[in-house]
């Protein structure tokens, strides 16, 4: 069972391979490019022949797929499964497709859980793909409708499933939207964090939890599928 890399060059070197079964929280301020970063991590997974399960609470499934199509046509017979929590919430009728299963709403944690499990079964058991990345973008939307205890219970189950499936879990959280107690509660569930902060004109990131000390902060720029890090401070 091989581990995982994020696809962000300097950071991958610093932290080494991420153990399979790990769960990571990505936390950062609005407009800091978290969507692009998570997409890059997914894209890197697809290149490594991982399968990807993507829970989207902010964009309809079709939009998520589009991003990949725009950025790279070739990856498109990738094993990607999107759990779309948006379309039905908007009252739009749309059936499931090969790549997209739709939950009723972000409140419908039962439905979201069923669909995640179905993709896990499809990728690991039916298609025999050993490595899977589960991304939830974002926990903050789910927390708008459900309280922290509820979300904690949900995550407790699914971080456990990630562990037993030897997958990699990445969960996006909006900074500044939640009280410190909520963040502290969530943190208990994760093996590490990708932290993002604003830094002068731009943003900087660092990884916590995979090396004895956090990595240094790196300013970064996003260029299509690439996260380009600048020298650390």
């Amino acid at each position, binding site marked *: 069972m091989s581990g995982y890399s994020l696809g962000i060059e300097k950071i991958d070197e610093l932290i080494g391979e991420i153990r399979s079964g790990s769960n990571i929280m990505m936390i950062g301020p609005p407009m800091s490019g978290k969507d692009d970063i998570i997409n890059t991590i997914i894209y890197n997974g697809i290149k490594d022949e991982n399968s990807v399960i993507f829970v989207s609470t902010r964009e309809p499934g079709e939009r998520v797929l589009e991003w990949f199509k725009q950025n790279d046509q070739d990856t498109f017979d990738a094993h990607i499964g999107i759990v779309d929590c948006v379309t039905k919430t908007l009252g739009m009728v749309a059936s499931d497709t090969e790549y997209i299963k739709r939950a*009723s709403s972000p409140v419908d*944690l*039962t439905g979201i*859980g069923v669909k995640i499990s179905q993709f896990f079964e499809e990728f*690991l058991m039916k298609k025999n793909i050993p490595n899977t990345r589960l991304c939830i973008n974002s926990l903050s939307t789910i927390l708008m*409708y459900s309280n922290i205890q509820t979300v904690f219970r*949900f995550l*407790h*189950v699914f971080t456990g499933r990630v562990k*037993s499936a030897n997958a990699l879990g990445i969960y996006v959280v909006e900074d500044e939207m939640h009280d410190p107690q909520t963040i502290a509660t969530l943190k208990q569930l994760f093996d590490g964090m990708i932290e993002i902060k604003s830094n002068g004109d731009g943003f900087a990131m660092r990884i916590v939890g995979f090396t004895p000390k956090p990595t240094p902060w790196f300013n970064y720029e996003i260029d299509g599928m690439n996260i380009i890090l600048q020298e650390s401070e």
Partner: protein
Amino acid sequence: MIQTGITKLDDYLMGGIPDGKSLVYYSHPGVEGNVFGMQTLYHNLAEGKKCVFVASSSDPSMIKDMFKEFGWDLDAYDENLIVVDAYSGLVGATSNEKYVVENPESIDLLNESIEKVMEELDENSTIMFESLSTIMDLCGEKETIDAVKNWNLHGMLYEHVLIYNFTAWPYDSKTLDLIKHELFDAVITVGGIAERVIYGQYFGVLKTEWSDIELKSMLFRVLRPGGIRIYIPKIVVTGPYNAGKSTFVHALSTRAVSVDRIGTTVALDHGHVDHKGFSADIFGTPGQERFDPIIKMLSGEAMGIFLVVDSTNTKDFVRAKQMLEITKAYGLPLVVIANKQDQSGALKPEEIRSHFNIPENVQIMPTVADKGEGVFEAFEALVNKITEVV
């Protein structure tokens, strides 16, 4: 009394759910327990009953769409389907339903609506809670438990049947124990078989107040369209050379393949059967003696066996008897197929029984496999045996 509409479950419940009783589908996270409540609701609408859907995590305008996924068209039942909207208030949407819970996080408001709808219904009806766990998440565990007690009491009073879908997230263990053992008249557990990931689903009766049936777990799968099917992963079809095994497999199957050479099976036949709420994979063995190891291998994980004999060919009965012995060792449910009944000189099932010395508890079913006659009756006989209440 109402039926759940789920194959076998009504048998396990001694016919269904008596009026005034409550039942919970208690599902482990990630398995499709929610379909159980939906199927029960649809079945009762189709029976002409009045039903209430308490929406907690879905927009009411999406409900019909949700059911359509399984091929269940609710349009014909507008008159009989009442929705309690305990969802729209949560996302700030306006509601068109008659019963609306303005603030779904308030157990008192929800309670009010549920009591009201139960009182106003003019006949005993089926009330289905889309997600009791969502109510619990929004209103609190203790508060919800108290409300459920009250709803079940009301149900008893007005003789409504209450059906709850519940996902067993890691709540307080006291809460889960109450739900499993005390709050409801019947508890159906819906679980997953997991190894790294969930790859199989089952349900079982954990408790019923009105019968003392022994717990039995059944595998199931969910078809879209179709809904819940009892799943039997392996039935083996065995029997002497040329008895009609491959023909039998093909006659039953919606799709089937055989690995044959010059008209005889050299590897195996595989077919898939979807019939009366059962979904089964069937495997035919080659008939010739040199393939006996394949029979042993195949029988290993089987749930039941068909032994096909050519009813005209008494000299093959020795071979058939030998194959019966091979498979009997596995202690599996078995049905004998008396095939080729159309041919002259075919022995009747009871004649075959005495030839073989087959005990009375083994059924012998007459068939004409190449015309498809009797094959589904035989299938029903075996799956009933496999799933019978012990």
